Structure formats: structure tokens, C-alpha cells
């Protein structure tokens, strides 16, 4: 039976590899079309990946992408499209920053308090979309998009000096967090510091895999994603599952901004990174919702982000990296579907062939009356 396992691995790898190859080729075409070398920018970016300070930046950035993509992926696993990760992580980072600036407990309590604040904020925000979906049938896509913009407005309100805002020059901040809520980084010498919460990202990845693949709940969730009708008939309460998945997705999303908040900025300001939630969608897609795949995808994305500024110094536009990210997402969608269908059909044929050849599991009699002609 190892054959079919090996085949599944092959199919899992084929999709992203094809997608990446296509994306590289298309980006090269874009470069040629604009009259530039199609090779040198990639060479420059690969070279960047060799520098240890850039590597630290990539890992730090990837940790946030990773958590955001996990949040998206858990929704994908049951056909829920949580587009609201963006609003959820920003709002969650802000509330954590506010709590961190106003509460001052010992670190052993302060850190869990901040994490919990972020999780609950994210879950609350996505939960609104979940409740709307199960009670009123509102599409979670529409609801979460709307909630993103509401989150922006709420953040703007919380930044007001009369509320929780602290003006520093032209910048809106939430004031500096107490040091008990700072998480020390892993010192890499001259290359900088890796955020302490990178470890949290890794743990979340392991937890994600365990819960989905090894627990009853994970089975129910995956079944709901694979076939809503079959899951319902198997005893999954579809509404409860939608709400639960939405809450988990939002809770995870809430953590996405914390590595930089607790490891570096220590305040939620205008400079706080935005758009991580949207990038997470592409990363989850590329990573096929698998924790390992998402890790690679997050690193790839972070590399494109952190290596591309160098291009500006060599007469190229760093936006080539953004174009490439877009091309990857497009090719991923096409190639995955193609590979999936091809794989299914191939397996059907092979099972037919094996049966016809008499390779039946535990066959005692070799009567083939049922096999013929299938």
C-alpha cells in the first residue's frame, strides 16, 4: 500500500512545484517585456537570502505570515473563507497593546494575559461573522470583508488621545507596553534578534496538525469541509461546526501580529504592519493548508518581501516581487485543481487495473465477476 502513499506525496508536491515554476517563468516574461534581464533580479534575490541579517528578517516576517495563514487554512479546511484575518489580527494586536500598556502584572501572568486578550479579540471579531452566518445565512466572505473595514474604523477610534491613543510626534500609538509584556528575542549577534514568539508559531503549527489529523474534532472539521452533507449525516452539527471553526480561525488570527508587537514595537502605531491577513490567504493556498507546506510558503513570501528592496539599488523595481506573489497565487489555484483531478482519475484507473490483475486485499477467492469491465 506504500505505493498509494508515495503517490499522494508526489501529488502534494507536484502542485506547488508546477505553480512556482510557472510563476517564475511568467515573471521572467514580464521582465523581458519591460526590457530588463530576466535572470539578474532572481540572482540578486537569491544572493540576499544568503545574508544572515536578511535571514533573521525573513524568519521574523515569516512567523507572522505563518500564523495568519494557519488562521486562514483552518477555515479553508471546512470550506469557510475567512477574509477577515486582516482586521482580526490588527484589532487583536491593538487590544493586546492597550492591555499591555495599562496592566502591569508579573511577566508570568502578563504574557498569558496579552496572548489571551489577542485570541479573544480575534475570536470575537470573527465570531460576529460566524453568528451572522449560522443565524441569518450571511456569507462569511461578505461579513468578514465588512468587519475588516469596521476594524479599521474601531482602530482609528481607539487611537484618539481621549480614548487609548498616545501621540508621539505625528504618529498615533497606544503608548508603550510595560516591560513585563515584552518577549525577549533569540540573539543572533550582529544579525539581529529572532522574535521569541517564532516559537509560538512553530507550536501552533504542530498543534494545528495534531488537532486536525489526530482528534475527533479535527476529523469532524475535515469531514465538514470535504462534504457538508456527509458530515451532517455522520452526526456533525453543521452550524456549531461553522461557528467553532470561525472562532478558532479568528483566535489564531489574533495571534498573528503579536511576534512583532511583543518582540519589537511594543506599541500599536501607524507603522504596525498591515495586510498580513490578506497575504495569509495566498500563503495558505500555496501551502495547501498543510502546516509544513504553509511554513515553506510563509518563508518564500517573506523572502520575496525582504530580498526585493535590494533590487532598487540595481536598477530593477522591487515590485517585481509583488508581481511574482500575485502570479504564484494565480498559478497555484490553476495547478492544484488540475493536479487534484488528474490524481483522482489516475487512482481510479490504477485501482481498476490492480483489481483486474487480482490484487485484492485479503482476497480468498479469486472470482472476478465484479471486477470485470470496471
Amino acid at each position, binding site marked *: *500500500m506504500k505505493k*498509494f*502513499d508515495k503517490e*499522494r506525496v508526489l501529488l502534494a508536491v507536484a502542485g506547488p512545484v508546477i505553480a512556482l515554476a510557472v510563476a517564475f517563468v511568467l515573471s521572467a516574461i514580464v521582465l523581458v517585456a519591460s526590457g530588463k534581464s530576466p535572470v539578474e533580479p532572481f540572482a540578486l534575490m537569491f544572493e540576499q537570502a544568503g545574508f544572515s541579517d536578511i535571514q533573521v528578517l525573513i524568519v521574523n516576517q515569516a512567523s507572522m505570515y505563518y500564523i495568519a495563514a494557519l488562521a486562514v487554512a483552518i477555515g479553508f479546511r471546512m470550506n469557510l473563507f475567512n477574509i477577515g484575518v486582516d482586521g482580526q489580527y490588527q484589532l487583536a494586536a491593538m487590544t493586546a497593546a492597550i492591555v499591555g500598556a495599562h496592566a502591569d502584572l508579573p511577566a508570568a501572568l502578563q504574557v498569558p494575559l496579552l496572548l489571551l486578550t489577542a485570541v479573544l479579540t480575534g475570536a470575537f471579531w470573527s465570531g460576529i461573522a460566524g453568528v451572522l452566518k449560522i443565524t441569518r445565512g450571511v456569507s462569511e466572505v461578505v461579513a468578514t470583508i465588512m468587519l475588516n473595514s469596521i476594524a479599521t474604523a474601531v482602530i482609528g477610534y481607539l487611537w484618539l488621545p481621549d480614548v487609548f491613543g498616545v501621540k508621539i510626534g505625528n504618529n498615533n500609538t497606544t503608548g508603550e507596553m510595560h516591560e513585563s509584556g515584552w518577549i525577549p528575542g533569540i540573539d543572533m549577534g550582529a544579525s539581529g534578534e529572532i522574535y521569541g514568539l517564532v516559537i509560538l508559531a512553530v507550536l501552533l503549527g504542530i498543534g494545528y496538525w495534531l488537532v486536525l*489529523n*489526530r*482528534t*475527533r*474534532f*479535527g*476529523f*469532524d472539521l*475535515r*469531514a465538514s469541509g*470535504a*462534504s457538508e*452533507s*456527509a458530515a*451532517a*449525516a*455522520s*452526526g*456533525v*452539527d453543521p452550524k456549531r461546526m461553522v461557528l467553532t471553526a470561525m472562532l478558532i480561525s479568528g483566535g489564531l488570527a489574533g495571534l498573528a501580529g503579536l511576534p512583532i508587537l511583543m518582540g519589537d514595537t511594543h506599541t500599536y502605531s501607524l507603522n504596525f504592519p498591515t495586510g498580513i491577513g490578506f497575504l495569509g490567504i495566498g500563503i495558505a493556498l500555496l501551502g495547501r493548508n498543510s502546516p509544513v507546506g504553509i511554513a515553506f510558503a510563509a518563508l518564500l513570501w517573506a523572502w520575496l518581501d525582504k530580498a526585493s528592496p535590494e533590487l532598487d539599488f540595481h536598477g530593477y523595481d522591487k515590485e517585481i516581487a509583488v508581481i511574482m506573489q500575485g502570479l504564484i497565487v494565480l498559478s497555484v489555484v490553476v495547478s492544484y485543481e488540475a493536479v487534484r483531478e488528474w490524481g*483522482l482519475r489516475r*487512482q*481510479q*484507473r*490504477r*485501482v*481498476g487495473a*490492480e*483489481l483486474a490483475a487480482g*490484487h*485484492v*486485499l*485479503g482476497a480468498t477467492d479469486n472470482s472476478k*465477476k*465484479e*471486477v470485470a*469491465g*470496471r
Partner: protein
Amino acid sequence: MTAVELAGITKRFPGVVANHDIHLTVRKGTVHALVGENGAGKSTLMKILYGMQKPDEGTIAIDGEQVSFSSPADAIARGIGMVHQHFMLADNLTVLENVVLGSEKLHGIGSRARRKIKEISERYGLGVRPDVLVEELGVAARQRVEILKVLYRGARTLILDEPTAVLVPQEVDALFDNLRELKAEGLSVIFISHKLGEVLSVADDITVIRRGTTVGTAVPAETTPRQLAELMVGSELPTPETAESTVTDRAVLTVEALRLSAPGGKALLDDISFTIHAGEVLGIAGVEGNGQTELVDALIGLRHADSGTIRFLDQDITALPTRKRREQGVGYIPEDRHRHGLLLEAPLWENRILGHVTEKPNSKGVWLDLKNAQQDTRRIVETYDVRTPGIDVTAASLSGGNQQKLIVGREMSHHPRFLIAAHPTRGVDVGAQAAIWDHIREARREGLAVLLISADLDELIGLSDTLRVIYDGKLVADADPATITPEALGSAMTGAASGHLEDEEIPETPAGATDSPKSAASPESLEDEAR
């Protein structure tokens, strides 16, 4: 003169009974009915004629000329038009816009198209108004728009897939008048149905299809519904007879005054009461769409009854969710295994867990127990003779019969005390059918209570200890399977008889009797099995 001739059509899919050596000849200017039970292969055949699928063998001739279609566009160009069971209209566009959509080149999109539509509408008495929004139209009017759409594209042969399933009797009559207009103008109509009364009243020729092949033709004037039913049901199948009665007096499932309404208030299930004892198989006979799907949903907990109670052993389970019911020993062989019984793209062992994730050997506490689940999957595969090279292949790669054996094996492995078996052998080949019957019989001997729903009357009569007839959401008649014949049961299913059925007393069903369950049907149950 022949309009359409299909000869020796064979279509194979991985694992399902599709079409085998089908012959069909449609004369010009006639209504040709294609009858057969759901899943007999009617839809596949029409998809082949409409260019949606290519036959593996056989030929298609239009007006005596051999053709090969690779898409519906080819078929349309040859004058074949299809009116689907589920209308393909955009609600927020007008009738005119819907009709010209995709065929803008024919007569433009303006006054010329409007004139053409009015002309067609008048010629065939369709009464279609071009400038009304489709969302304002009722079901029957939408259907006429669909017919007009097809005529507008120049169809000379129309395929109507179960056109009466969504209509009330008066609308059915009006539709038949339209069909007569069409054939008077020299057009041909292929009319797919499993409602015998309607078929006999409108068709000029009838072809009967069973288990994927054409089994006979009939001339309506010389045929009774009884004979047609006989052709449809067939009798060469292995008989599912149960030898001795194992019925006990211990009630396992008691349903009392169960009522379920559609959102509009129409009763889908009306005052349903019955008791199934340990060791008893209760068979429910009925034309599809008369409440069987709803009954099964109510018993497994997918829908909750508006009123009435369901007692399982000594417990009231009316309000229990599906999972609790399954944990307590309700087994479920669903009508549509692809929608309700399997995760097609998941490996067999995950499908073994499906529905029993909280039970041994699939889990320990909140954790899955993969090792034991996989081991037990191997056991099921061997015991129930599921033909597969291994348990890591996806369910989709198995044949329909083997998928069904896996489901039966899974449900039986948890020793249910009550089993819902909805069409347990549908789309399954003869060998697997006999095996499934054996398993049900064996479990029945050990005290299992079974609710059996089947369109195969031989299966129903052969396996059941007690028979009830469902019609329009009500249990209208009961019968003793030892004495009843498929024909007598068939006429009771049309609502022509009620009370206790004795074979001798069954009145002949008049040919014009309406046997349409009307809007009682849910969309799923009306759908011909997707293949």
C-alpha cells in the same frame, strides 16, 4: 421517418451501472416516453444524446444521418434541445434576455428577437410574455420559457427531463397540451419520466429502461400501467426472499403522529405512525418524492419533526441530534451514498470512521485511534468482500457496489439495533446486491429492526416482514409481503388504493390516474441519481 435513432449505446463509468447496449428510435412528430426507475440510466442516455457525454460504443443518428457530438453546442446545431429538470434561468433577467442569452447571433437582442419569441409562443400556444422578469414567473411558466428557449435555438427534437416532477396536475395537463401542439408541428419530444399514468396519457411510443439497458417498448393504447410497471421493475433479479419470520414483540422503534412541514406550510410528512419490532423489516413502498427522504431525515435527525414523537427502545429520541442517535445504535445506509455516506476523496479508512468517530475502535477519548481504525477497516474490507487493493485508496476509486459494501460493513460493525436502509442496493450490481441482502437478513435474525425504503419492489416484498405504502407524505396502506404482488403494490403507490391491501381487491388503476406527488418532493429526491 425517424428523428433520432440510438443504437447499441454503451457507456461505462468507473464503478456504476451506466448504459449497456441501448436502442431507442424516436419517430418524427411523436412524443416518445423513456421510462425507468431513478438510477436506471435515463439521464446518462440523454446526456449522451445531448452531447454532454460521449458513448463508449454505439451510434447516434439524427434524421437518418450518423452524427458524433462532442458538446451540447453540436447537439443544438443538429436540432436537439434539452429542457433540464432544474431550470437554468437567470431570475433577475427578463424572459427575452434569458432566451437570447448565448444566442444573440440568431435574431439579435432587440425587437427582432422579441418578434421571434412572440411568434414561437403563439405557434405552440406557450403564452410566454417576453418582457416579464423571470423571478415573477411561477414554475410552470418558467418551464415554458425553457421550452421556448430550446425552440428559439431551432430544436426539432426536445428532451424533457422529468418535466412533470415540479408541476401540479392542472399544470401537467397544460404541459401535455403544449406537447401535442409541438408534435402537431412535426417536432419530436423525448419525455423522461417514471410516472406511468402520465406516460400512458401523453406518449405515442414508450421505451422502458432498466438497470442501464432497454428492456422493451410498448404501445400506450395496448398497455396497462400494470404491464408497464412489470417491465420497469423486472423479475429476473435474484429474489431477496427471507425464509422464516424472526419478528418478535419487542418494539425497537415507535413513531407516533410524526409531522414535518415544508417552509411554505405544506406537509411533507403527515401523521406518520408505525412500530418496528426487533427482528422485523418494515418496508416502505412509494413513488419517489412522496416523503421517503423526509422520513429518513427525521429518523436519523437531519431534520427535526414539527410534531410527533420518535421512541427508540425505551427512550424518546425526538429531540436528540444525529450523533447521539447513531451512538445509541441507529445505523444508516443513506439513499445517496455520495452525498450522505462517503467522503469521496478521503481514504477508505477515514470513510470507515465517518459517522462513528466517537465510537470504538475509531477513537479513544478525544483522540482518533488510527491504528485500530485502520485495522478494523481491513477487517471490514475482508469480511464484506469490498474489492480494493488497499485501505489507503480513495472511496471515489471504488465501484458503486464496493462503496456500498463498505458502508454496509461500517454500519453493521457497530451492531445497530435499528437500521435505516434507504435503497440499499441502488446502482449496485447483482453480486453485491445479493451480499447486501444477506447481511441485512443475518442482522435481522439477530434482532435488528430495519426500515427499508426501496424503489425495487421485488426487493421490498422479498425482504420485508411488513409493508406500508407512503403517498403524499402519509402512510396510506399496508400489505402482507407474503401475498402481495409487485403489480398490486405498484397501483397502491399511485394512491389508487388504501387501507389493507389484499391482492384480489386491488382495482385496476385507470390509465389517466394522476400519480404525481406534486410539490411534496424535496429537490434532492426528485433528482435523478447523478452519474
